[in-house]
């Protein structure tokens, strides 16, 4: 049986003496399980990463030219998925949060004397050996999230797809080839999935499956991905246009939507689902005011900030009835949705065979 491969650990610190200490101390503690390389600045580190892949990078924060936080950000772009541990002599809560938000796996304090190093070693060693042992590691450029999800589902995998941009962080839970849950900010369920799939760029990580707090998605992955693609198409070519146009602008907003109360306990979604609302670059931020979701059979599945679900349901039934008669009058095809946009926001009433959805938003494109 062959010996397990040594873990490649790269330490980046501007203090050459400290790097020597890392090499000596950690090398001894690792007992040939680590192969340690060192770099004194970001340029050296990048050159080393290009020459040889690392399993883990341990990064000092206080470095000249490009500090550790900036370098962490850069690594997130040049080496997505690479595990980075921050090691600093000047730990603050703000720095810790910033680094973890940027994707650092751990944030550790530099020991003040040698007695503290075994604890640092233990933490790094545990992390590097917890990394996946099988499968490919590497970079994929310009890969759509749809393709990643498709690969996972086709392979009947179980995983969590973490998606992140500068403003949005979300997760899609895949269990045995089925998408079972998605969350993005305060959104969850298929609305969250569609909003994540409508993102134009960003990064992602595939991590081992963990059971979500709740499962919110039941449809087949094929249907969900097709639906996401369809909504993106109808939302104004989200993927290819630099500043999508609003679909339709309206003059007045229905009172039933405009008067939604905002209770202090109700969570407020930060970003509207891109599938339902497109926002030009110059538009005000879009904010969801209320959502109501019924099953195809009319059972109320979810209501948020809706002053009267009965009134909303009656409205949708009226719209559906009118749409049916229009469909019967000419070859316009099946009804999909009715949209209204006002100075204050936008309303979308979507009617599908398996669901009825009402979303009211404020902000977005100015009329």
């Amino acid at each position: 049986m062959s010996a397990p491969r040594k873990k490649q650990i790269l330490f980046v610190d501007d203090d050459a003496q400290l790097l020597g200490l890392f090499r000596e101390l950690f090398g001894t503690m690792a007992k040939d399980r680590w192969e340690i390389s060192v770099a004194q600045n970001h340029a050296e580190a990048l050159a080393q990463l290009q020459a040889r892949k690392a399993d883990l990078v341990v990064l000092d924060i206080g470095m000249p030219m490009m500090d550790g936080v900036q370098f962490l950000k850069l690594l997130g772009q040049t080496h997505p998925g690479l595990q980075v541990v921050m090691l600093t002599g000047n730990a603050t809560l703000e720095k810790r949060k910033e680094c973890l938000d940027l994707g650092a796996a751990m944030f550790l304090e530099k020991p003040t004397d040698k007695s503290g190093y075994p604890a640092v070693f233990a933490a790094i060693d545990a992390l590097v050996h917890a990394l996946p042992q099988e499968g490919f590691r590497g970079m994929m450029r310009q890969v759509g999230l749809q393709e990643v999800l498709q690969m996972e589902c086709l392979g009947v995998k179980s995983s969590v797809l973490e998606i992140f941009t500068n403003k949005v962080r979300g997760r899609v839970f895949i269990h045995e080839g089925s998408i079972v849950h998605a969350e993005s900010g305060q959104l969850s369920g298929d609305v969250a999935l569609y909003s994540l799939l409508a993102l134009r760029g960003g990064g992602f990580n595939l991590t081992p499956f963990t059971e979500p707090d709740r499962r919110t998605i039941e449809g087949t992955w094929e249907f969900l991905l097709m639906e996401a693609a369809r909504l993106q198409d109808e939302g104004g070519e989200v993927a290819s246009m630099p500043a999508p146009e609003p679909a339709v602008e309206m003059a007045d907003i229905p009172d039933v939507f405009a008067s939604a109360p905002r209770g202090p306990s109700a969570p407020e979604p930060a970003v509207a689902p891109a599938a339902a609302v497109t926002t030009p670059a110059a538009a005000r931020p879009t904010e969801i005011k209320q959502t109501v979701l019924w099953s195809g059979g009319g059972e109320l599945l979810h209501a948020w900030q809706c002053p009267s679900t009965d009134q909303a349901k009656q409205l949708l039934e009226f719209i559906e009835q009118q749409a049916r008669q229009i469909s019967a009058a000419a070859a316009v095809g099946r009804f999909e949705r009715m949209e209204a946009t006002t100075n204050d926001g936008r309303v979308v009433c979507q009617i599908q065979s398996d669901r009825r959805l009402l979303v009211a938003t404020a902000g977005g494109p100015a009329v």
Partner: protein
Amino acid sequence: MNPKTKSQLTQSLALPGVAAWCICDANHAFEHHCFTDWFKAAQLQTITMRLAGALEGLRKRQTAARQFCWVFEHAQLLLAQRTNGETLVLFVEHRPGLNLSIHQAALAEFSARS
């Protein structure tokens, strides 16, 4: 509507994807123009009347909207209404990537000329 006004309206509504337009006034008098043979005059009138009626029905349900977009599998019906009750419906092809901003501008202009 005099022929010159109708001609000007037809020119201004000759927008990408527009198959026809139809106007219905408060007395249920219709004017329309077809850019394609997709819709017959009777269909335009039926749908326009139906949408104007739906607008009224929505108002009765405390939804005082003057403009709507009804999206169907093949067509998008864009609707604007003036304060004098005149309703304009644009019958627009429903296809991905069709930018509706100029259609919206045309509807806004129609509403503004009340």
